[in-house]
């Protein structure tokens, strides 16, 4: 009549992984969220996590959790406001455009490499993020001088991102 509890657990533990194991399904799994945040008077704005390590094929979803401001997630690339390129040469640039509170934007990363991005109204205030896809060999950009100091100083190192998986912004801790 009723299946013994242990059997259920075994079934869940053994059969389930077999069902969802194909790598394509894993790759298509839930997007990894990066929150857009701000404090009450708008003095602090940030991405959380600010540094993130993912694998090729994974999707990142930016979510504006700031009730009092609009934010963007915009790749450093000449097609975006003529900003310097800080994504792999052959990678597709993205620009979420302005996200109002509660809005989201998703982007799937296919190519291994380091991807730097910024928030259009907050680049000067240092609202930037870095995503490392896979295990890239070339990890240094040569156009640091073209960025606002506050933005440049905010990036976590590729080394730390690879070591820790995700890095939270100072304000988020």
């Amino acid at each position, binding site marked *: 009549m009723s299946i013994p509890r242990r059997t259920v657990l075994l079934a869940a533990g053994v059969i389930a992984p077999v069902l969802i194991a194909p790598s394509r399904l894993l790759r298509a799994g839930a997007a990894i969220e990066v929150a857009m945040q701000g404090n009450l008077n*708008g003095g602090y704005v940030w991405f959380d996590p600010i540094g993130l390590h993912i694998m090729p094929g994974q999707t990142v979803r930016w979510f504006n959790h700031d*009730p009092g401001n609009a934010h963007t997630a915009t790749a450093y690339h000449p097609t975006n406001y003529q900003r310097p390129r800080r994504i792999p040469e052959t990678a597709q640039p993205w620009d979420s455009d302005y996200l109002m*509170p509660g809005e989201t934007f998703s982007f799937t990363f296919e190519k291994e490499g380091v991807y730097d991005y910024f928030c*259009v*109204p*907050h680049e*000067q205030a240092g609202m930037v993020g870095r995503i490392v896809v896979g295990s890239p060999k070339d990890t240094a950009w040569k156009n640091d001088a073209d960025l606002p100091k506050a933005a440049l100083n905010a990036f976590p190192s590729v080394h730390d991102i690879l070591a820790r998986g995700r890095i939270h912004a100072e304000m988020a801790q």
Partner: protein
Amino acid sequence: MKKALSLASALLASVSLTAFAGSADKSIVKSPPASPYQQVSKLVPLPDFLPGMGQLFVDPATLPAGPFLAYDHDKKLVSTIYMVPLKDINPNNSFDNLSAPGGNVDHVDVYYNAGHPGVGEPHAHIVMWHIPANKESRVAK
């Protein structure tokens, strides 16, 4: 930042002396204020009601400094706000004769803001409240 804010305070002192006396311009005490003021959320992508400030209107010709007029949920004027980019506080620049149509000022807040659509760079908010500090909750959210 501290330095920038004290500069902003000095600037405030120079622009706002005329605002502390007199009553409000009738055409702006209720939302929406008369032209040339326009709803900020229709000019730039921002929420219509900003927590802590209220519903904002501005004459686009006066950007970025403003004044911005802020209203509560009952459409009553609560504050007049100036937004002054930190980089514009320098020896070669000044903001002269900014209008102050809101009438009596109860108290003033000056604080740093990282930026938002419309003023996309770090700036000081100089908020001249027309209501007492203990009534600011009217625009808390």
